[in-house]
C-alpha cells in the first residue's frame, strides 16, 4: 500500500478520491454497494437556506459520453440536512464537505455560519451551478463578484473554504486568482458545462429546464485543461473533476496539478468507480515506485 494521503487545506484525507457534489446523495444510497468509508471525502449535494423543490422533469438527458442534468439544486434546506442527513454521512468516518449554493452573498454567509461547528470538515462554495435562475453561475463569472462572496464566506467560518468554479468563462485563471486573493483555501475545477439537447420528435428542448449542465467523460479534456492552467498560476490546492472514470483519468488530473479528485457521473456508469480508482492509484504507485502519490501532483508541468 503506497501513501495516498493528502492534507487538503487542513482536511486530512486517506486518499485523494472524493465524491462530486450532487452525484452521491448522502452516501447511504451507496452503502450497500461498496464500503463508502474507503472514500477520501464526501461532498454533499448543493445546500440552500430554505428547502428547494428543483426543476421539473425530465432532469436528465444522456449525451455522447456524458449527460446533461438540470436538477436545479433540489435539497431539503440546510436545517433538515443538518438534522436528518449529516449524522448518517458523518458515520462513515470520512471528512464531509458541505457544498453550499446561496443565491445571494448573505445566503452564503448564513449557510457558512450555520454549517460551522456541525462536524463538516469544510465548505465547497458553489458559485458555478448552471441550473438555477439566481445565484449559481451568475456569482461565479465576474471576478469581483466571486471574490466578494468568497471573502464573506471566509469571514463567516473557520472551516477550510473550497471554491468551485465554472468552466463557462472566458478566463478561468482570472477567477481563480480573484478567489485566491479573497482567501479561498482550495479550488474545485470544474462544474458542468452549459449545454442543451433538442427533442427532435417534440421539436422542443428535452430538459424541463431547457438548459442543463454537461458532465461525464465528454468534458474531461476541458477539466484537465482548467486544472493545468489554474494549478500553475495559483498557490492553492486544486480538486480536479469532470469525467473521471478510471484511475488513469484521475492520474491525468493529478499530473495536471490536482491534489485531489472528485468522481461524479462515473457512479452512474459504474457504481464501483470510486473504489476502483483508489485501487488503481495504489497500483500505479506500486508499479512505478511512487512512494507518495502527492509527489505526482503537477508532474506534467513540473517535470517539463
Amino acid at each position, binding site marked *: 500500500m503506497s501513501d495516498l494521503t493528502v492534507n487538503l487545506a487542513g482536511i486530512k484525507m486517506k486518499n485523494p478520491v472524493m465524491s462530486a457534489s450532487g452525484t452521491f446523495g448522502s452516501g447511504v444510497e451507496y452503502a450497500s454497494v461498496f464500503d463508502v468509508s474507503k472514500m477520501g471525502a464526501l461532498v454533499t449535494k448543493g445546500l440552500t437556506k430554505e428547502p428547494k423543490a428543483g426543476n421539473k422533469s425530465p432532469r436528465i438527458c444522456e449525451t455522447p459520453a456524458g*449527460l446533461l442534468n438540470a436538477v436545479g439544486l433540489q435539497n431539503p434546506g440546510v436545517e433538515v440536512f443538518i438534522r436528518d442527513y449529516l449524522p448518517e454521512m458523518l458515520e462513515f468516518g470520512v471528512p464531509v464537505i458541505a457544498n453550499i449554493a446561496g443565491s445571494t452573498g448573505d445566503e452564503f454567509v448564513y449557510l457558512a455560519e450555520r454549517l460551522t461547528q456541525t462536524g463538516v470538515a469544510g465548505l465547497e462554495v458553489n458559485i458555478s451551478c448552471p441550473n438555477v435562475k439566481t445565484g449559481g453561475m451568475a456569482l461565479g463569472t465576474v471576478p469581483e463578484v466571486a471574490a466578494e462572496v468568497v471573502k464573506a464566506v471566509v469571514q463567516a467560518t473557520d472551516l477550510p473554504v473550497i471554491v468551485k468554479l465554472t468552466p463557462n468563462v472566458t478566463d478561468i485563471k482570472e477567477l481563480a486568482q480573484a478567489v485566491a486573493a479573497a482567501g479561498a483555501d482550495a479550488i474545485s475545477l470544474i462544474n458542468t458545462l452549459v449545454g442543451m439537447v433538442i427533442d427532435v420528435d417534440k421539436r422542443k428542448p428535452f430538459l424541463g429546464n431547457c438548459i442543463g449542465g454537461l458532465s461525464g467523460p465528454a468534458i474531461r479534456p476541458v477539466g484537465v485543461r482548467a486544472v493545468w492552467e489554474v494549478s500553475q498560476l495559483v498557490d492553492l490546492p486544486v480538486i480536479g473533476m469532470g469525467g473521471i472514470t478510471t484511475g488513469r483519468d484521475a492520474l491525468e488530473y493529478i499530473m495536471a496539478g490536482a491534489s485531489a479528485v472528485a468522481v461524479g457521473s462515473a457512479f452512474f456508469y459504474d457504481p464501483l468507480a470510486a473504489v476502483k480508482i483508489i485501487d488503481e492509484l495504489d497500483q500505479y504507485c506500486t508499479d512505478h515506485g511512487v512512494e507518495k502519490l502527492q509527489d505526482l501532483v503537477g508532474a506534467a508541468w513540473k517535470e517539463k
Partner: protein
Amino acid sequence: MKGPEEFSCRVIEQDALAPDYYLLKLEAPELARNSSPGQFAMLRCSEGYDPFLRRPLAIHQVDRNKGQVLFLYQVRGKGTKWLSMRCQHDKLSLLGPLGRGFSFSAAGGRAMIVGAGVGVAPLLFLASELRAQGWDLVILMGARNKSGILRPDAFRECGDLIIATEDGSCGEQGTILDLLSRELAKSSFDKLFACGPLSVLKGVQTMSREKGIAAELSLDERMACGVGACVGCVCQGHDGSYLRVCKEGPVFSAEEVVLGE
C-alpha cells in the same frame, strides 16, 4: 430489506419473443433472493461509454431455486439494442435490486393487473407472488398487435387472462382502458396494479379514483444513478414536491402522484 449491490452476471440464455422483444435470463442468485415484485435493476449496456448511462429494467421473473433472474424488454434504442446482442456466457454488469416495489396484503383478495405493451415486464413477478399468497387475479394485457402480447402463457398460470389488441390480431379488439372499464363494471376488486405508457396509467388512476379502488402504478422516468443519489428521476407528488422514481418509486400508489403530460 437488503440494499442494492453491484453484480457481474452471466447470461444463461436470451430469446427473441417477437421482433424487438427479448427475454433475458441471468445467473444472479442473490438478486433472485433479494428482489421483490416491482423492483428493477440498472444494467450497463455497452463495453465503453456509448451509451454511458445504465438502463433500468424491471425484474420480470425470478427463480430462487435456480438462482436466476429474467428480464423482458423491448429494443428501443442503442442500449437495448446492445443488450439484445448478448449471448450465452457473456457477462453483464448490473446494479440491483432497486426501488420500492408493489405492496399488497398477505391476507389476499381480488386484484386486477393491467399491463400495456412491454409494461407487462414487472407484472409477471407480481402476479406469481400474489398468486402464491392466495390472491385471485384478473390480468389484462393490451398491445397494438399480436406481436406485442408478451408471455401470455406465463401470465395465464397466475390468473384469468384477458387480451386486447388495437388491431384485433390477438384477443379482443380495443384498448386496454376499454377492457378495464368494462371489467371494473362487471365485478369488484380490492386492488389495481398497472404498468404501461403514461396514457394508460392516467386512465387507471382516474378509474381507481372513480371506483374507490386502491391502485399502484409503476412509473417510467429517465434515470442516472438508480439509487436515489442524483435526484434526476423525479415525478410530482401530490403536495407539489418531487419524488424520486428510482427510490420512492418506481411503484407509487395512485393517490401519491400527479401524472404529467
